[in-house]
């Protein structure tokens, strides 16, 4: 039987990927960001799973306004890094896990979550920056990845409650897969940031840290937070944080072990938040 061993939560700021790719990690601006992920890299090297179920959002890359799936699961064999307008990131092609992905799709759709099935797509910084932060710059990613894209660009985005319950359905699906795979689930995006309009640059350190506290200790209560609070307190793009609730919902109902917690402002326009939680 497959099991979910741990969950990872992290921002996926594109400038972090650019800093890595251009060798700027030791510059004073970036050094504190990458230092915050050193323990995570060591942990990941010791705890490399067979598969990462990676929840992220596409940023007008694979999905234009022609097609806007709320939840899209990648069931394909591989996913190239996308050219987002300045050339593709120099990172490995992401290898999928079609068998597990198809199994999860089958189970989760029968649990009333209407997933869009994707067999071919490019993956943008939303997916590749978290991999870089935890895995560094390898020739090939150290495990398989199932991309799971959530619409957080066009409102209304899915509610926190729905995301949390979807996580529970994903847990049930993983635990009913016969092969004894170790699976991690990652929730990415956030934390507070606003990229548009005269209010651009909004950061809310206090709110972000309260979000991290509640994600650890009271995820079910946190899941009932309405969209408007995210937007008001954490900025219009802070709404990405609903994706973290998918990963948290996939964890055991028992309290998790907090392996690592990190918070830093700023990375470009964004507050960087990061947590690693293990099931115990």
């Amino acid at each position, binding site marked *: 039987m497959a099991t979910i061993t741990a969950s990872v939560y992290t921002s996926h700021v594109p400038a972090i990927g650019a800093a890595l790719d251009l060798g700027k990690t030791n510059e004073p601006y970036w050094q504190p960001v990458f230092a915050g992920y050193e323990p995570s890299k060591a942990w990941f090297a010791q705890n490399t799973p067979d598969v990462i179920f990676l929840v992220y959002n596409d940023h*007008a890359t694979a999905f234009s306004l022609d097609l806007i799936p709320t939840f899209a699961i990648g069931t394909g064999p591989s996913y190239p890094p996308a050219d987002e307008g*300045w050339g593709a990131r120099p990172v490995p092609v992401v290898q999928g896990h079609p068998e597990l992905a198809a199994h999860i799709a089958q189970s989760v759709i029968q649990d009333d979550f209407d997933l869009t099935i994707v067999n071919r797509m490019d993956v943008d910084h939303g997916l590749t920056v978290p991999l870089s932060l935890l895995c560094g710059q390898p020739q090939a990613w150290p495990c398989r990845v199932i991309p799971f894209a959530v619409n957080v660009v*066009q409102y*209304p985005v899915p509610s926190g409650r729905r995301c949390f319950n979807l996580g529970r359905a994903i847990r049930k699906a993983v635990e009913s897969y016969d092969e004894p795979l170790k699976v991690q689930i990652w929730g990415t995006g956030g934390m507070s940031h606003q990229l548009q309009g005269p209010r*651009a640059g909004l950061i809310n*350190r206090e709110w972000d840290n309260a979000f991290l506290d509640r994600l650890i200790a009271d995820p079910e209560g946190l899941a009932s937070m309405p969209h408007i609070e995210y937007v*008001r307190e954490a900025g219009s793009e802070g709404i990405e944080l609903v994706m973290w609730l998918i990963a948290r919902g996939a964890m055991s109902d028992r309290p998790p072990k907090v392996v690592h917690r990190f918070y830093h402002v700023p990375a470009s326009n964004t507050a960087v938040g990061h947590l690693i939680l293990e099931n115990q």
Partner: protein
Amino acid sequence: MALDKPYKDIPGTTIFDADQARKGYYLNQFCMSLMKAENRERFKANERAYLDEWPMTEEQKQAVLARDLNRCIELGGNIYFLAKIGATDGRSFQYMAASMTGMTQEEYAKMMLEGGRSPKGNRYIGEDK
């Protein structure tokens, strides 16, 4: 019956909802076309002619030509799509963000280094600073 949109009272913020997306469909799809190098070249060679290939409103075309991102957003643009215009111009995202706030890029970058824009006074129109 009008749907509840509680986000209308947040200062300096336009939520990209289904209505905005409907208004901005061609504006955003024009931006999306700039993902291709040959389209970027054609756009740069003659911006007006390239825009005229799209069934956008004249107001939307003028906002793009003026690089007035706030106006583009008001007319249905979304920042992730509009960012492709900045990339075509060789501008950083911080440059674009600063341009929407009335600050210089240096002032904006300094604000971010100092912890970003405070939510205080920015949660809803009329909140005390």
